[in-house]
């Protein structure tokens, strides 16, 4: 290992460690009472009939952050599409059917619908209970991949027309932006949650636009996770190096 790097690491690491430790000693006591922003967020959430304050922060009070977050996910999908595309010296081989142990197959096919419904449930109840679009979307996307475990890659590809998922992903981002623009057109502000009635506290339809934004995010995350996994799986299963450059492989 490089000597210079070790020295740099020792100096820099010591300095940063000293800085962080000194800062920690100046922080307010762990578990302290003073959380002014947090308290305001709870009040704002209850005023808009949203039981899950975190959903209110994510999809109402700081919905603009979530717009950026969604765009990051969308950018990552586009980025992976670009970075993991098939290059000139690679070709595609159809995946071979695989033998799956019977209990694994039975279990996977049994759990698949349950996981899918769970994902949708978590998305739909985002404003009521812990969870929401991000978490539920990942659960739903993972559910599909049980097919890869339970059957084989070919089976997964049949229920996973990538084009549809990519379109879903992009449309979900668009609908989030359009919902934001609706607030602007209604004369309030971008991403203002004033279009719809706030409904009854602790019911599915409460919280104005929060459930809609939640659904958009859920769609986006499910689409994005599926597409991302698909591109990585393609690399592992289908795309082969045509030239066999490396000797000994």
């Amino acid at each position, binding site marked *: 290992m490089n000597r210079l790097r070790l020295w740099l690491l020792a*100096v820099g690491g010591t300095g940063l460690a000293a*800085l962080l430790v000194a800062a920690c000693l100046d922080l307010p006591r762990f578990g302290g009472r003073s959380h002014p922003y947090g308290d305001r967020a709870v009040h704002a959430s209850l005023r808009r009939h949203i039981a899950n304050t975190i959903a209110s922060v994510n999809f109402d009070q700081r919905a603009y952050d979530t717009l950026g977050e969604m765009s990051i996910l969308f950018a990552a999908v586009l980025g992976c599409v670009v970075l993991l595309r098939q290059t000139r010296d690679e070709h595609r081989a159809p995946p071979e059917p695989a033998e799956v142990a019977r209990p694994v197959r039975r279990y996977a096919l049994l759990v698949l619908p349950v996981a899918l419904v769970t994902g949708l449930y978590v998305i739909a109840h985002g404003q009521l209970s812990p969870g929401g679009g991000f978490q539920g979307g990942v659960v739903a996307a993972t559910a599909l991949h049980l097919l890869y475990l339970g059957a084989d890659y070919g089976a997964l590809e049949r229920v996973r027309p990538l084009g549809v998922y990519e379109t879903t992903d992009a449309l979900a981002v668009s609908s989030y932006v359009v919902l934001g623009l609706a607030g602007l057109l209604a004369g309030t502000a971008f991403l203002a949650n004033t279009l719809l009635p706030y409904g009854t506290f602790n019911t599915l339809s409460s919280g104005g636009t929060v459930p809609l934004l939640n659904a958009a995010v859920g769609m986006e995350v499910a689409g994005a996770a599926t597409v991302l996994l698909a591109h990585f799986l393609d690399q592992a299963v289908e795309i082969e190096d045509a030239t066999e450059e490396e000797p000994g492989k």
Partner: protein
Amino acid sequence: MHHLLPLLVAVPLLGAALPAAAGRRLPRAAVEITGFVVSGGTGALALLLLLNSTPPMTEWVGGWLPVGGQSVGIVVLGDGPALGMATLASLLTLAALAYSWRYFDAPPHGHTGAFTALMLLFQGAMCGFALAGDLFNAFVFFELMSVVAYALTGYRIDEARAVQGALTFGVVNSLGAYAMLMGIALLYARTGELGMSAIGRGLDAHGGPDALVLASFVLVMTGLLVKAATVPFHFWLPDAHAVAPTPVCMLLSGVMVELGVYGAWRVYGTVFAGPGGIPAADLTRALVTLGILTAAVGAVMCWYQRHIKRLLAYSTIAHTGLFLVGLGVLTPEGDDGIALYVVGHAAVKAALFACAGVLLDRFGSVDEHALHGRARSLRATGVMFAIGALGLAGLPPFGTGLGKSVAEEAAGGPLTVGYVLVSAITAGAVLRVTARVFLGLGPRPEDAEYETSGSGEEPETGGLLRRVPDTMTTVPAVLLAAALAVGVAPGFGDLVARSVNEAGSGGAHASAHWTAPGVLLGLAATALAVILAALAVTRPTWLAAPSWAAPLRRLQSGHVGDYVAWLLVGTTLLGALALPGVLGG
């Protein structure tokens, strides 16, 4: 009017998402036209808002107006510097899209719009970061900007260097971003707020600065200065800019790096400038020291490059150092000068990258030695390359010259010498390339031991170009004209100065216009650049790399572990430079 501010983010995002949704069916031309319309439209909106930014606007997204001075929402800023950066980013995106018109040979199969969509996302992210008045929101758009930039840098996956440079870029910048988030968490713990001005008020209410303020300052600044490629956080930049596709380089060097500098200016002025923050003397010490280091390292490394894009990347580092020095002196004149300098530099640097891209696509090389005398036929490109070099030197009446002269006057004393030397060396290096590549002057130079050559690059177009498309010559010409206009247009300097000072600088007002010493210094820098280039071409041995430059080059090892270690050293250095005021307070 202020309700329209978030549109600068929303419109490019929508413009990226809709073509992606229809991507499989849309023909390539439709996608590219959408790209122009959206980036141009956003640019026009940014310009319109910029012209209406007196007095500065603020917008609470979601309509969460503050109650009793406190809000649960996110504030977006619409003052001169914020909208100016957003306009600059948008117009440069438009230029880059025009330059890349029908540029890449094969877009990813079934994803015709991927490149355009990524560019639009990049534009939206840069606008979002420029307008952010909330620290966490700034982090989100900082990350969006980074993620898009990594993907765009590694776009040419066939190239071994491209993917390596993109990964280095990704690791170093992400680590910087996480450091920034640690700093944000510390600030939240102290003040319980996320809005920049609210945090500033919270710090002031708490009393004088302590270790926590220092640590959060260092961590937040680390993230921003990594983006701004400040020494010793700069190692990723040459590796990334040398390998990114040319239109992307135009944006990376022209505006993304400068956004890091802008972020540092904004965060210091809004969060840490009060009595509870970092004392002014400490900030000046930190920024001016790092700025001088950055300018010196950038200039020296720039001079010894033969890979033309890498040379331009180092010149960006050198100029970033000058920006930091100008902002670090904390005077209204310094802020005004740097604002003008950034605008002029963006146009000049983007034009230079555009010309380098022409070389790459015509000859499959951006190596100064290999191209010796081969580009004689590219007269227009050669002339523009030379004009770009003069702009880099700050020759009056370029906008860079105006900005530099105002900043020089603000910095004063020995720092002025630094400004002249650094701009002369970087411009001299570009002029040297012009003389060798486009005119074939002097003997063919010898190869050094430890360097990156620019040969063996793949062109970005489908095969080598026989003739240069009109877009690839028009775009740099327009950019150079814009750089001239910044310095020539009567009253533009004062307009910029007024809107910058309205937003920051403690309410003091200064004006920015040409002065006799400024013009003379600009001419001196240009003359020095010409002399350096002439000497380098005719007497290569006189200005060959001396032995003390070799270790400096060895530090740029291409090893991501080294760069991470340097990042840690950088945070320590930053902490040490800002420490005295905290100890004294």
